[in-house]
C-alpha cells in the first residue's frame, strides 16, 4: 500500500509541472506589454520598468519560467500589488475558507448522491425513484449561483432562519455554531449539482451491478435482499462511483467561485475574481497553481481510496 501511494505521488510530479507550464503559457499570452497591462496606461515608466524587472519580464521566456518555478518551490509566490502582501499568505488564508466550504459540500454531495442513487436503483420505478429522478434533474439544471440566491431569499430573508452571507457574524460570532449557520446555505447550494450527477451515476452503476453474476450468487446463498442491495451491490457500484467523486470534487471546487461571490464567502474564488478585475496577475497565477496542485493531491487520495476498495488495482 505504501508503495502504491508513493508511486502515485511520484506520478503527480510531472502533472504538477505540466500545470505550471500551462499556467505560465497562458499568462504569457497577455497582449502587449504585461507591466503596462497590469499597471494601467497611467503608470510611470519607472514603475513599468520596475515591475518588468520584478516579474523578470526582461528575460527570455524559458528562463523566466524556471525563475518563477524556482521561486515557487522555495515558497515565494511573489507579492500581490493590489493587496500589498505576499501572494502565498493571502492564498493560505483564503484557501482555508474555501476548503471549509468546498469540503463540506463535497462530503454532502457524496453522501446524499450515493444514498439517493442507491435508493433510486433499489426501488426502480417506485414513487421514491421518480421523486429522486425529478429532484436530481432540477438539481443538475439549476445554476448554483441562482440556487444560492433563491436560498437567501427563502431561508435568510423570508424565514430568517439563517444569516444572509459571510462566514462569521461580525459581532459576537466566531464559534462553531456560528460557522455552521453561515455554512449551511452555501454548502448546500454548492453541493446541489454534484449531488445530482453522483446520484444519477450511482443509480446506473447500481443497476448495472445488480445484474452481475456475483449478485445472483449472493441471492443463491440466501443473503437478504436489503443486504444484497446495500451491501454487495453498493460496494461493487462504488468502484465506478469513486473516480467520479474525484472529478466532481473539481466541479465543486469550481462552483465554489460562484458560491463565494453569492454568499460573500472569504475564499480563494472571490480572491481570484477580484484579482482578475484588478489585473493582479501574480495573485491569479499563484492562486491557480496552488489550488490546482491541491486538487491533484486530492485526486491521488481518491485513487488511494479506490485501491483500498478494490483489491484488483493494488499493485
Amino acid at each position, binding site marked *: 500500500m505504501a508503495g502504491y501511494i508513493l508511486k502515485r505521488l511520484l506520478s503527480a510530479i510531472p502533472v504538477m509541472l505540466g500545470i505550471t507550464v500551462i499556467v505560465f503559457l497562458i499568462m504569457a499570452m497577455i497582449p502587449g506589454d504585461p507591466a503596462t497591462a497590469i499597471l494601467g496606461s497611467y503608470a510611470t515608466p519607472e514603475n513599468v520598468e520596475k515591475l518588468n524587472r520584478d516579474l523578470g519580464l526582461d528575460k527570455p521566456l524559458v528562463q523566466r519560467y524556471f525563475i518563477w518555478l524556482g521561486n515557487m518551490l522555495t515558497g515565494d509566490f511573489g507579492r500581490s500589488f493590489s493587496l500589498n502582501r505576499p501572494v502565498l499568505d493571502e492564498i493560505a488564508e483564503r484557501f482555508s475558507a474555501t476548503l471549509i466550504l468546498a469540503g463540506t459540500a463535497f462530503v454532502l454531495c457524496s453522501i446524499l448522491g450515493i444514498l439517493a442513487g442507491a435508493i433510486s436503483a433499489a426501488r426502480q420505478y417506485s414513487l421514491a425513484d421518480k421523486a429522486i429522478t425529478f429532484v436530481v434533474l432540477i438539481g443538475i439544471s439549476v445554476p448554483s449561483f441562482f440556487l444560492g440566491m433563491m436560498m437567501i431569499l427563502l431561508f435568510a430573508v423570508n424565514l430568517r432562519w439563517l444569516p444572509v452571507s459571510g462566514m462569521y457574524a461580525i459581532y459576537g460570532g466566531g464559534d462553531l455554531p456560528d460557522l455552521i449557520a453561515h455554512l449551511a446555505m452555501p454548502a448546500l447550494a454548492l453541493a446541489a449539482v454534484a449531488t445530482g450527477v453522483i446520484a444519477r451515476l450511482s443509480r446506473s452503476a447500481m443497476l448495472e451491478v445488480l445484474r452481475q453474476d456475483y449478485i445472483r450468487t449472493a441471492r443463491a446463498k*440466501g443473503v437478504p435482499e436489503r443486504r444484497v442491495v446495500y451491501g454487495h451491490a453498493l460496494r461493487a457500484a462504488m468502484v465506478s462511483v469513486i473516480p467520479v467523486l474525484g472529478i466532481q470534487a473539481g466541479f465543486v471546487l469550481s462552483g465554489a467561485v460562484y458560491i463565494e461571490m453569492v454568499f460573500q464567502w472569504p475564499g480563494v474564488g472571490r480572491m481570484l475574481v477580484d484579482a482578475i478585475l484588478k489585473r493582479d496577475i501574480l495573485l491569479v497565477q499563484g492562486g491557480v497553481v496552488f489550488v490546482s496542485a491541491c486538487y491533484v493531491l486530492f485526486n491521488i487520495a481518491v485513487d488511494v481510496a479506490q485501491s483500498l476498495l478494490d483489491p484488483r488495482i493494488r499493485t
Partner: protein
Amino acid sequence: MSAFLKLLFRNRLAAIGAVVLGLILALVLVAPLLPLPDPDATATSERFARPFSEGHILGTDHLGRDLAARLVHGTRVSLAIGLFAALAAAVLGSAIGIAAGYFGGRTDNVIMRAIDMLMAFPYILLALAIVAALGPGLRNALIAVAAVNIPFFARNIRGITVGLAGREFVDAARLAGMGHTRIILSEILPNVLPVIVIGISTTVGWMILETAGLSFLGLGSQPPQADLGSMLGEARAALITAPHTSVVPGLMIFLIVMSINLLGDGVRDALDPRLKSGALARPRATTRVDRRGPVPEEPAKGLLDLQRLETQFHVGKRVYKAVNDVSLHVKPGECLGLIGESGSGKSVTALSVMGLVASPPGAITGGAVRHDGEDLLSLPYDALRRRRGEKVAYIFQDPLATLHPLYRIGEQMAEAIRVHHRISDREARARALELLRAVRIPNPESRLGNYPHEMSGGMRQRIGIAMALANDPEVLIADEPTTALDVTVQAQILALLDELRRERGLAILFITHDFGVVAQLCDRVAVMYAGRIVEQGPTEEILARPAHPYTARLIACVPELGEGKRELAAIPGLPPVVDSLPPGCAFAPRCDKAQEDCRKGAIDLAGTGTHDVRCLHPEVTP
C-alpha cells in the same frame, strides 16, 4: 432516423424538453418582431418596477430598463455564445483528437499528455486564468469556456479514431495511395461525426451555463451589453429589495439548461440499445411467478421435484419459452445430469428452482418446484430466501464472475453461514476452514484472506463448492461447474462431488453440455433441447442405447470418455431460437431421420417411465 425520433418522443420528458427549448428558440427568433422597448433604454424614474406593471410585463431593473426586452435580448446572447463555444470546442477538440488517434505513436503520446494536464485543472481555474490573461469580456469568456472543453472532445474523439484507424477500410485507402488529409476527411470524419454531434448536444447546456457564470462574476459581458449571466450578476445587489430582477434571468437559464438536459438524455437513451430491450431494469429478489394454469398437485417423486415447469422471457412483444413443460426429480444421494447445448434452457431450469432467474425479463409461467413436497414457487420471499443456500445450494460456472470481487474468500464463506445461523466470528472462521479442507484446498488459513482474483480457476471453483456446502444443504444444483477448467482439475472436482453425495446423501442436479462428465458422475440423465426434455433415463442405458437422434449425436461427439476437449459444435446447424419454435419436433431441421409427421403436431414424452423419449422415429424403442 424516424424510428429514432419515435423513440425519442415516446420519452415524455425528452418531448417536454424539446417543446420548451423550441418555444425559447422561437421567442428569441421572433424577438425583433415583438413590440418590446429598447433593452438599453434607461429610465431612472421607473427603477425596479414590479412585474405586470404598466408598460413593463416583467418589470424593470435597477436602471429602469425593461426586463422583458432585456430577457429576450440576453437569452439570445447567451444561447448564441453557448452554442458558439460548443462548436468551437467541438471543432478544435475533434481535430486534435482525430490527429492524435489517426497518427498514433509519438504524436498521440504528446497530445494526450497535454490533454491530461489540461484535465488535471479544476476547470474554472483554467477558464479564470485565460480570462485573467486576455482580460474580461464576452469574447474572452467564450474563448475560455471553449478552451476548457476542448480536452473533453479531444479525448472522446481520439478514442473512437484509434479504433477506426486500425480498420480495413482505412488500410485500404492508405494502400490506394490516398493522402492523410483525404483519408481523414473521407473515411474517419464521417464515422466520428455522430459522436461529435452527441458531444455537442450534451455539452452545449453546460457551456451556456458556464459563460453565464463568467458573466455573472463580472468577467464576461460588460455593460451595457447583457447576457443572462450578467443580468443576474447585476441584479444580485438588489436581490432582497427587488427579487424579480434576479428571478427572471435565473429562471430562464434554468429552463434553457433543463430543456437541453432533458433532450440530451432522451437522445442518449434512444441511442442506447440496452435500454430498448429493458435489460437495465433492476432484477427482483426472486423470479416473478405468474402461473397461467393451476399448480400441479401430483405427489412428489423425489426430494426435489420439478413439475411441468415453464419459464419464459418477455422482451418487448417477444416471448422466449426458455423452459417448456419440464419435469425432473432427484432423490437424496442421487445425481441427475441435465444436458444440452447452450441456449437449450438447462441453466434457466436450474435457476428457476430457487427463483434466481433475472426478472424482468424472466417469469415462471407454470408448473411447480417441490422441495420435500412443498411448492417453492408459492412461498413468500423470506421463506424462500431462508431455504436458499440452507436447503438448496448452487455451484455456478465461472467463479471469477460469480464470486464477489471485493470481498475476501473468508468473508464470503462466513457470510454464507451467517445469513442462516447465528454464530460468532471465530466459529464462522473455524467452519470456513473446515469446509476449505473438505474441498482439499491447500493452506486454507492463508486462503481465507485472499480475494477471488488472486486464485486459480480450479481453486476458485473449489471455493464455490465449499461455499455451497457451508450449511450442509440437501440439494446441490451445479451449473457447469467444471467447464472453465482443465481436464485434471475437472476430474478432481467431479471426484469430490461424487464423494460428497455418497458421504452426505446430497441430491445433485448437475447441469452440463458434456456427456463425458455425465458418464462419470450421474445416475440418471435428462437431455434438453429448445426448452424441452427430449429424453431421460438411467445414464448407462442412455449411453449404451440412446433413443433420441439428438442424444445419439451428443454422445457421438464425445471422442473418448474422460479425455480431450469436447465440443457440441460437431452437430451441424444451430438450436432454434425459442421465440419462434416450429410446430412439431424442434430438432427436425437438424435431424437425419426427420419425416413429414415430425413437423406436424406436438410430440409427447413416451416410454417406460424410467427411460422416456420425445421422438416419433427413435433410434431404439426404450
